[in-house]
């Protein structure tokens, strides 16, 4: 029974920057694009267990205000810097940025065919762009409006556009570009006249109905042919900030500043008549703060807002199989690792949006029994605060095992630092003259002996650098498989330095032989993306975790799955194991116990003991420490390979520092909430 000294860290992030600004659902690929307040854009694959498979780093000057898919699977965003961006989903970079010349852009919408984009700007202009195969091209300005255009929606036939502005909604004819209807909103709210009524969202239905949501708290239905108000639902005391309509136009969803999401459905008035009416059917309160954006997939309502949660609420009547996919999902933490550690020097490197922090772990001389918190003889030291140059967010970072190298990358530059430790002083020296090919990295990794650096660039190639004292030498570049430009997102190197495993977002896992500098083998393809990779010491078994919670063990020397992995696949994982809803983000190994695999997700960590029998669905998966007084027989009967602990959650990072020390980084949700701006206050007592 190993006893671990556990250093646990509570990490603080700047959460205000992390709120969700917009989401866009792509029906074709069942993917969801999410943009954060700091300009980060994330792509979630809803088919692959809601895994965040790609992300584009943010930028200080780029506040994304609108996000949309066009031409099938091309992703565009527009923001307050007045630019329209297109994202390259293969190479994970920004294809181009185009200034719309209308001041800050508040809204954007793609035409139903996907061949045109329309943006609404600060100066009241609505601009139409043609989507060409390579770029987008400005086509025309529509009639200029008085004030900023905050929301846009196309008629499903592509002939008209509804634009929400301040105090009114205008309907444009796409062909002529002229305004054909203007609908003025009422500023009254429960008898109080507000200074203005902001139309936060509009939706154009095929029967000509325009649905608007506004800052007065109303959801209103307008007849665009006559310009008259058909129906008004007062649903909130605060702003209604977002709306999304289902493709079938039989239901829509709105989000309010009070954190409530309302579902509206088109329901027959009586059983016999065919007359149908929009009825507010279900309210959901999954958010504490403003719901800034909503989306409506065929089977679920998706909402996101200031409180950083992405909530996916399946519609029970649309879900065919009532399995775990039909459960509510709340995604809060990034599905990638932001922390790396140096085992030899006991350092942790935290990656923030615009800086890195290096901490030295504390120590203690005391001992204790299970559950004790030991007095510290030395507290954790904040050694280094490294600010990035320029406005770009950090994509990835890494500290070497010996602690003397730090590398990180932004979207356009790669940085490598050499650290020197003299007693308590640290000196930092930047390695200059980075080669031209090292511009931007998706993943960085140092070898176990800190003599090699592996960089996965966003062009799909893998660079190997040999690190010397204060300088480096380019050793080799593994070019991507011919024809693919897909970026490699995850790397793992074997402790003996012979093997390098790399995985992309969909292409599977490749294993390279570092001694002969050639591709060794490719792990058989699997449908779900890889969430974590690691190579075990001595055996050189590659352990792969996938987003559907499957874990495989692949023997690199034998080029095949190990017997244990086959046995696991044959029996299948425990039901509860497969039902966890956060992916495994890190895998590590115990240096002295080759049968153990340590892995963790956001809510638990698990030691898999390969020597013990696998649990079947009848056994209890989570059996914490069994009581001491139980007989050996009982222990043997109930013991199984998965030792799960949920003491630390939400868990951002966990690793073994040495045989007896684990380090865990926790991120308490209360801290996140505390950092957010206060929500709309609701009175607790009657006065």
């Amino acid at each position, binding site marked *: *029974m*190993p*006893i*671990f*000294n*556990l*250093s*646990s*860290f*509570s990490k603080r992030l700047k959460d205000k920057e992390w709120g969700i600004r917009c989401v866009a659902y792509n029906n074709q690929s069942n993917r969801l694009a999410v943009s954060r307040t700091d300009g980060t854009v994330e792509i979630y694959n809803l088919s692959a267990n809601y895994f965040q498979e790609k992300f584009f780093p943010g930028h200080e000057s780029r506040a994304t205000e609108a996000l949309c898919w066009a031409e099938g699977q091309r992703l565009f965003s527009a923001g307050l810097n007045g630019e329209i961006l297109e994202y390259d989903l293969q190479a994970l970079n920004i294809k181009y940025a185009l200034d719309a010349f209308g001041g800050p852009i508040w809204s954007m919408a793609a035409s139903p065919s996907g061949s045109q984009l329309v943006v609404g700007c600060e100066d009241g202009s609505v601009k139409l762009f043609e989507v060409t195969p390579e770029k987008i091209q400005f086509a025309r300005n529509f009639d200029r409006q008085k004030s900023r255009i905050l929301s846009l929606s196309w008629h499903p036939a592509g002939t008209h556009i509804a634009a929400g502005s301040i105090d009114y909604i205008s309907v444009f004819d796409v062909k002529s570009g002229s305004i054909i209807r203007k609908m003025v909103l009422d500023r009254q709210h429960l008898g109080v006249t507000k200074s203005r009524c902001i139309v936060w969202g509009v939706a154009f239905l095929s029967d000509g109905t325009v649905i608007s949501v506004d800052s007065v708290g109303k959801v209103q239905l307008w007849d665009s042919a006559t310009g008259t108000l058909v129906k008004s639902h007062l649903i909130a005391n605060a702003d209604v900030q977002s709306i999304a309509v289902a493709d079938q136009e039989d239901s829509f969803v709105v989000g309010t500043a009070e954190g409530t999401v309302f579902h509206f*459905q088109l*329901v*027959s008035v*009586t*059983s*016999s008549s065919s007359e149908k009416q929009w009825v507010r059917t279900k309210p959901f309160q999954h958010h504490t703060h403003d719901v800034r954006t909503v989306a409506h997939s065929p089977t679920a309502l998706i909402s996101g807002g200031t409180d950083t949660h992405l909530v996916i609420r399946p519609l*029970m*009547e649309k879900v*065919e*199989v*009532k*399995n*775990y996919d*039909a459960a509510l999902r709340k995604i809060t933490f990034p599905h990638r690792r932001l922390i790396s550690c140096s085992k030899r020097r006991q350092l942790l490197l935290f990656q923030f949006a615009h800086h890195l922090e290096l901490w030295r772990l*504390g*120590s*203690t001389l005391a*001992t*204790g*029994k*299970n*559950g*004790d*918190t*030991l007095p*510290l003889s030395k*507290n*954790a030291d904040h050694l280094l605060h490294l600010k990035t140059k320029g406005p770009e967010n950090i994509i990835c970072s890494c500290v070497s095992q010996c602690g003397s190298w730090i590398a990180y990358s932004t979207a356009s530059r790669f940085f490598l630092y050499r650290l020197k430790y003299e007693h308590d002083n640290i000196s930092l020296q930047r390695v200059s003259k980075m080669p031209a090919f090292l511009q931007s990295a998706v993943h960085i990794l140092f070898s176990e002996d800190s003599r090699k650096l592996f960089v996965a660039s966003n062009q799909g190639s893998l660079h190997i650098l040999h690190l010397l004292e204060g300088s480096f030498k380019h050793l080799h570049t593994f070019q991507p498989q011919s024809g693919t430009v897909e970026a490699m997102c995850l790397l793992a190197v074997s402790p003996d330095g012979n093997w390098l495993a790399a995985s992309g977002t969909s292409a599977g896992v490749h294993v390279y032989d570092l001694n002969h500098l050639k591709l060794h083998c490719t792990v058989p393809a699997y*449908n779900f993306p890889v969430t974590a990779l690691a190579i075990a010491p001595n055996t050189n078994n590659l352990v792969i975790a996938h987003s*559907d919670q*499957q874990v495989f063990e692949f023997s690199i020397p034998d080029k095949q799955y190990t017997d244990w992995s086959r046995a696991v*696949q044959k029996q*299948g*994982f425990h*039901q509860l194991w*497969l*039902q966890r809803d956060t992916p495994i983000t890190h895998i590590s190994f115990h240096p002295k116990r080759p049968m153990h695999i340590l892995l963790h997700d956001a809510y638990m960590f698990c*030691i898999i*003991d390969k020597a013990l029998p696998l649990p079947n*669905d009848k056994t209890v998966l989570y059996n914490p*420490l069994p009581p001491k007084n139980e007989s050996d027989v009982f222990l043997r009967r109930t013991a199984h390979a998965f*030792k799960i*602990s949920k*003491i630390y959650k939400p868990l951002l990072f966990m690793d073994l520092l040495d045989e007896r020390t684990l380090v865990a980084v*926790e991120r*308490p949700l*209360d801290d996140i909430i505390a950092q957010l701006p206060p929500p709309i206050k609701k009175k607790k*007592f*009657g*006065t």
Partner: protein
Amino acid sequence: MAALEEEFTLSTGVLSAGPEGFLGVEQSDKADQFLVTDSGRTVVLYKVSDQKPLGSWSVKQGQTITCPAVCNFQTGEYIVVHDQKVLRIWNNEDVNLDKVFKATLSAEVHRIHSVQKTEPLVLFQRGAVRGLEALLAEPQQNIEAVIPDEEVIKWSEFFMVFKQPVLIFITEKHGNYFAYVQLCKSHSLSKYTLLLGKEEKSVKPNFTARVDGKFISLVSLSSDGCIYETLIPIYSSDTEKNHRLIRALMLKAVVSGAARNGTALTILDQDHVAVLGPPLPASKECLSIWNVKFQTLQTSKELPQGTSGQLWYHGEILFMLHGKCLTVIPYKCEVSSLAGALGKLKHTQESDPHSMPHFVDWETCSGYDLGSYSADQSRTLRRKKIETNLQPEVPGSKQLLSIIKNDSEKHIEVELRKFLAKSTPDFHTKIGDVVAGLLGRCKAEPSFYPRNCLMQLIQTRVLSYSLCPGLMEIALEHTDVQMLQLCLQQFPDIPESTTCACLKLFLSDTIQDEKKEMKEQTEIVQNGFSPEDNSCSKDDQQLNKKPGDAAKETTSFPVTSCPVTPKRAALINAVLHSAYSEAFLLPHLKDIPAKHITLFLQYLYFLYLKCSGNATMTLPGISPPTLSQIMDWICLLLDANFTVVLMIPDAKRLLLNLYKFVKSQISVYSELNKIEVSFRELQKLNQDKSNRGLYSIEVLELF
């Protein structure tokens, strides 16, 4: 996956396919060999793998074959009937049908059925069934008529169920269809009436059947292009004649509804059916394989030259007449699993349904899209349906509606009880229609007031105010306080004006006068009715119990005496429970006379005192009003009628008490607000204790 293999044709030189196509294609005792009987004089034995005929036999000029040739699997001989009464039996060596064994029977034969491992059965046109051996022993024996005169056998099929031969045949009479199930060993015959849609009467439906446990699953392709399934029990439990069978939708619109003929279907296996017919009104005919379980089209094949609307399926081979040729299409259904199709191992076991939250499905609730029932659901429903439908004469909602329009109150009640006993998927909408029908008649005939029926309907808990807007108005007219109380308890969406009207009625003196009368009435309900009336009277008892409880409350709390009678208290409590919106309720409250306002205020104050009399601030009883409900109503009442109340001398004391109470409330709340800050600090301190701080080292024993 089910798949159709490459088709090929058999030469039909010797066969004459009439406008009706062939008489039949039957299996012979050797695999791969089939007997094809044309509608004229010829029988041909084909070897399908060689695509050639092995033998051909014809009856004499002037004779016509009237029943497809079959093979007697026990002897290997072939049997055919010509001119309806003449039986011929021959084997492969025979050349001329004229010279083979001949038996003339005393009645017309409809068909001969033959399956493996049993003797062939002869089905006569009047429904009698004989084994071949018994018949040949005495060919001229008397054949009885089993079915009524005007019924004509349209289709028949023969199964072996647990070594017991079972024959099912369907007859038609004036557009009505009947199914007969004949157990040959026990000689028991059951008759069922098939309830088809109205439109079926004109067109002949296609049938096919399969044994499914203890049921015969009769599948029919109706003229609206949908496939329906009817489950017929093989062993009928009771001896009662003339059961009715209701069909259930199995597949929607597989062929165009406009296709009058040229459609056929056959069951391939448990999950697949083959359908012949044009899928769209204008399109060419198609052979399509449908998976019934997943409601999907598996494969289809266009037949541009048209067919005779006949389809035979024997030993994994489909036969049809395509143009002038007999076309053979081998059909294969390999075992496949969903996991194999999707290529993942994810769901090793279906998660248990208990973990799913219960969710209101708006679309099925409101009857919005009834067609989209999943296959599984409808399958279980189908089973349920057959169970209930075997009970004789259950009224459909339409019949019930017509009964409501004309019949006596008593009769309606009986029919309604029958109707409520079964639950159908669109129960909500049907109940709504029934209530609307009842209310319509109430309005037309002032003397008609089916109280018991309405009470029963309200207690189904599916009604709401908006579904039957007239109900409460009528109850108000009849001052039926008990019904109003029930409505207030059950309906979620009563408009404020109606709530207020109820309140007015409850507070008024009329109710006091009627009290005696009401008591008598409820006593009758309790004692005078038959045990059938159980559900109704039980609820009535419950209703009566409640005022009793309220009475107990009054005795147990000697604070002040209750200003109203227990009965009235129970009624007012129902009003206090109902949902309302202040803005809409206020104007209506102003209409209540001053005397009643004081009474109501007194009662509310009394409730408040009793509430504050105990620590939990709740009232005893089954569903007592909560403190906040009481407070809200006091506020509302005062808001609405403050000036009036001020002028009433009786209310002065009450107002003073209320003033004191409000004052104490305000001080309590301000104190609470003051402590809130301290509480928050305490909470923070508490959190810090459990908090590990920014950095800590802990000892953790792992397993």
